[in-house]
């Protein structure tokens, strides 16, 4: 565990400044998603302060904005206003769907436990795109290969941390060893609970915390730590249900379907074989019947 590197994303102190998004683009030299749209004034979404919409081959980080000014968006009630923000990226799952299905070995597990891509191996089959439960890895039309956050593999290799975590002004993103980060996260959750902010829980690992949402449309709903696909090396402290942040409540490996699916396939094949044989058999018997009748 002490070998694993990851990040702890404490959404309770994320100011949504997007420094992480830019720092990521700066270090990884990523272009803008769609310059034409910006120049033609079609890029403005009106979705709070989010204009990059989701992760992509050129946005390896994406900050989400969820406005919860009052319990019900459709009424004037503005009690307990919240503006939830969360910086999203590849979670570097302990069991990574993309990695599992990659047919070329382009996706691989690094010495830091993260998932990196050999750009010179990827054939652009896009299977990993369909396999990722979080919609992280994406096809890059420019290169015909897939891209995603690689946990700044090249920085880690020269002993640095991730560019995004370094840039984060409030340490909402913290880079470190997963073990230390879990301890830190657990401490943080306990502190928030002790101050009455019982919404706080961990998404990615089950550290045994549970509480109740204190504001917004889901006020009163119980929440508890969830371990996702064997654990996430990049994990989150959330203040509302995962779905609110666009995270699946029950993410799973695509492989869960492999054996059953293949099994059912075999059975159906067998049935088809049998019916085929039966068909011939039936016809031949019919023929014979006719033949006998003919005598």
């Amino acid at each position, binding site marked *: 565990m002490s070998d694993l590197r990851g990040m702890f994303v404490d959404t309770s*102190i994320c*100011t*949504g*400044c*997007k*420094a992480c*998004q*830019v720092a990521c*683009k*700066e270090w990884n030299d990523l*272009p*803008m*998603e*769609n*310059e034409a*749209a*910006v*120049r033609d*004034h079609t*890029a*403005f*979404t*009106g979705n*709070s*302060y989010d*204009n*990059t919409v989701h992760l992509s081959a050129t946005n390896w980080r994406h900050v989400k904005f969820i*406005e919860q*000014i*009052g319990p019900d*968006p459709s009424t*004037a009630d*503005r009690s307990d*206003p*919240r*503006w*939830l*923000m969360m910086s999203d990226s590849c979670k570097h799952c302990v069991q990574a769907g993309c990695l599992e299905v990659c047919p070329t070995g382009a996706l691989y597990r690094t010495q830091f436990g993260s998932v990196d891509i050999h750009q010179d191996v990827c054939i652009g089959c896009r299977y990993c795109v369909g396999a990722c439960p979080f919609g992280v890895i994406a096809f890059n039309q420019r290169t015909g290969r897939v891209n995603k956050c690689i946990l700044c593999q090249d920085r880690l290799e020269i002993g640095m941390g991730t560019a995004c975590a370094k840039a984060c*002004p*409030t*340490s909402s993103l913290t880079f470190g060893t997963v073990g230390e980060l879990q301890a830190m996260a657990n401490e943080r959750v306990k502190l928030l609970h002790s*101050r009455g902010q019982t919404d706080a829980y961990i998404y990615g690992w089950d550290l045994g915390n549970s509480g109740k949402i204190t504001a917004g449309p889901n006020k009163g709903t119980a929440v508890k730590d969830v371990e996702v696909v064997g654990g996430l090396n990049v994990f989150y402290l959330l203040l509302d249900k995962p779905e609110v942040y666009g995270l699946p409540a029950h993410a799973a490996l695509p492989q869960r379907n492999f054996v059953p699916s293949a099994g059912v396939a075999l059975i159906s094949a067998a049935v088809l074989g049998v019916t085929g044989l039966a068909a011939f058999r039936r016809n031949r018997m019919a023929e014979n019947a006719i033949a006998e009748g003919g005598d």
Partner: protein
Amino acid sequence: MDLQNSDAIVFMGSNMAECHPCGFKWPMKAKAKGATLIHVDPRFTRTSAMCDQYVPIRSGTDIAFLGGLVNYILTNKKYFNDYVVAFTNAATLINANFKDTEDNDGFFSGYNATNRTYDHATWQYQTTKAPERVPEPPAGGAPGQGKEGGVGTSGPPTTGTVKGANFAALIANRLPGQPLQDKTLTDPNTVFQILKRHYARYTPEMVEKICGTPKELFIKVADTLIANSGPDKTSAFVYAVGWTQHTTGVQLIRTAGLVQLLLGNIGRPGGGIMALRGHASIQGSTDIASLYNIHPGYLNVPDASKSHDTLLNYILTETQPTSFWSNTPAYVISQLKAWFGDNATADNDYFYDTLPKITGDHSHLPVMVEMSQGKIQGMILTGQNPATSLNAAFQRNAMSKLKWLVVLDFYETESSVFWKHADAKPGDIQTEVFFLPAAHVAEKDGSMTQTQRTIQYHHKASDPPGDARSDLFFWHDLGLRLKKLYAAGRPGAKNVEGIKNMTLDYAPDPAEVADWIHKDEPSAFKIFKEINGFDYKTKAPLPSFANLLADGSTAAGAWIYTGMLQLVNGQLVNRGEMLPGKNDGWVSPNWGWAWPANRHQLYNRASADPAGNPWSAKKKYTYWDAAAKTWKNDPGDGIDFAPTKAPSTPANPTGIGIAFHDGASPFLLKKDGKGWLFAYEGTVEGPIPTHYEPWESPVKNLLYKQDRNPLTKIYDVPGNKYNEFAGTQFPTVITTYRVTEHHLSGTMTRWLPWLAELMPDLFVELSPELAKEKGIANGDYVRVTSERGVTEARALVTKRLRPLVVNGQTLHQVGMPWHWGYQGIATGDIANNVSSFVADPNVSIHEGKAFTCQIEKGRARA
């Protein structure tokens, strides 16, 4: 950084999380330690999202809110009595003829309606009799006269002669009497009692009526502040241009000053009023002023309307005999020496006469008005973009009257191509325009001063590309060329002595340019040294402003910066350097250098009680070490007080400068050494902050007959028509602001792909309630209009904005960031099309934060 020590922080007039994200890490550290964060703002912003309390308020009513706090503190007797009595002028008696706005329909005594000014006579302290005056020689007498003279002679900084006289004795001859005080605070003429009467009507109910802030929320703020102030607790206020950009800006900030003085939160760790400034070196450009009215070091520019006709009179006018400003002569003369060099002597008044004098308000707005009238021939823009600034169309039109314009910048700013604007007719614009590409901060040496007055020296990492050069190179080059022109002699040229004598020799040492392509880059370090100051003979840098003399033997460009360059056992040490490993503690006194004298916390003597002991162990900072007979500060901050002046030192009626104060007077820059709850001078529209409505407001003043600041600077010129006050045509309050993703007018961000895509388009934030009223859907194009013009923006409908109930009627507020223009990748309409020229009477700052507009669905242009 000190904010991490606060127990409660009120953000008001600031959106710190969005506009100063990295500074915001310190309040977040305080929050992690359990501090309460409060955001008082018209909009629920990313800052509000991080705060424990969000408190809505109507733009421009902050004085009512803060005055409400003052009243709440006074009526509930929650002020920090020992601090208030000892360190503020609460106990001081004011002239009995003083009349307050309460008894005068919103005016103080001394108002002159014809020229809209105040006579401050009735605002003065009651004092003991001033020391005996000695007869003074007529001005213009021979040097040395007036040396004899009864009263106390003063120390070196004030001794010296200029053409006409030795001024030391003359300064001594201007000592006033000691202010009279009533420490019981009961005398009706005490500042304390006046304050009580003045704010008596600023009740929570009144606050709710005026500000639209629910009473409970207001009281919660007050109680939080009170609970987190006192001997072992401190609270801080944080503001930015949300406070300055009002016709009442200065008074607004003063009101916060009153609250903090009453709660004893000034000069103490975790206390204070934090000003967050907007530009990388805007602090530096105020200290080393590129402003019309101050010379570097906050020395007033010679003014034709004051007694500044000779250097002697300038010195006698500007020198305050009873404050730290008693040292003014040394600062003035050292500056003149730095500017004019060898030939500058007492006999020629150090070329004082060659310096231009101001003849009125030459600040941005009035100069633009002059420009619109064709009175300005040429303009040089150093990284500023007026073409998208207030009442943008007015400023662009004014620029079209220029004969010539020089723009120094990175990208083709709107101003550099103002003649390309959609509404412009280039053929009719006879302006010759030069665009000179500028150098990036990483492409030059130099120092910048950040918002906590810390000077940091940065180094060149690369040559600028192509023809790009530093602005330093430009101004140096221009200066040399001009000197050459005038040295050659220009027929009919007047007042050329100054030009000929002003020093401009900053040619670099070979080592400084060895690595670089450009060998003619002037030496920023040599200028840095000149600003710091040096012994004129030995040319050795001076360690402190205390070493500056008034006899021409020292030179210093800006006294407040003296000490940033030092000789430490023969070695030149640039204290501005940012060297690894200097991150030591939250004060980090060795990281960069904070003026003055590396004092990070101003007035920090106030962090100890009158006897010099810490107010509490928890808030221990600067304290008196009786054994060592000296003041100490363990974190290593500089002592902002006379280092060995004992707390028990009595006031000296014949002492010059701070010697005039007793040992319990932390406020060195004040004439009585006290924190001013009542400012008998310095603020033109009154000694105590009073609520006036913004110049453009949909509602009348609920407190006084006088609706608006009577001294407001108004510009009644074509193209700057004001919206009707409390009218119906423009019923919506509008405020302008920044977002994290962009900077200022966007010239440094809208050209950057990474930032352009984050915030691609101009938007206006409005509440669903207003949107419904106007039939506006999220994302629609809307028109925002005022008498000045129209701005087109996308609607961002959000509950983060809310309608307020002001004096019983529902009132809507909208907000618009002002980052956009017609150049760059991310372009958009200009928010300032709708703002106006109207300004604060003290500092001529506009009112971009609170005015009125009309908003409707649809596009502005076909």
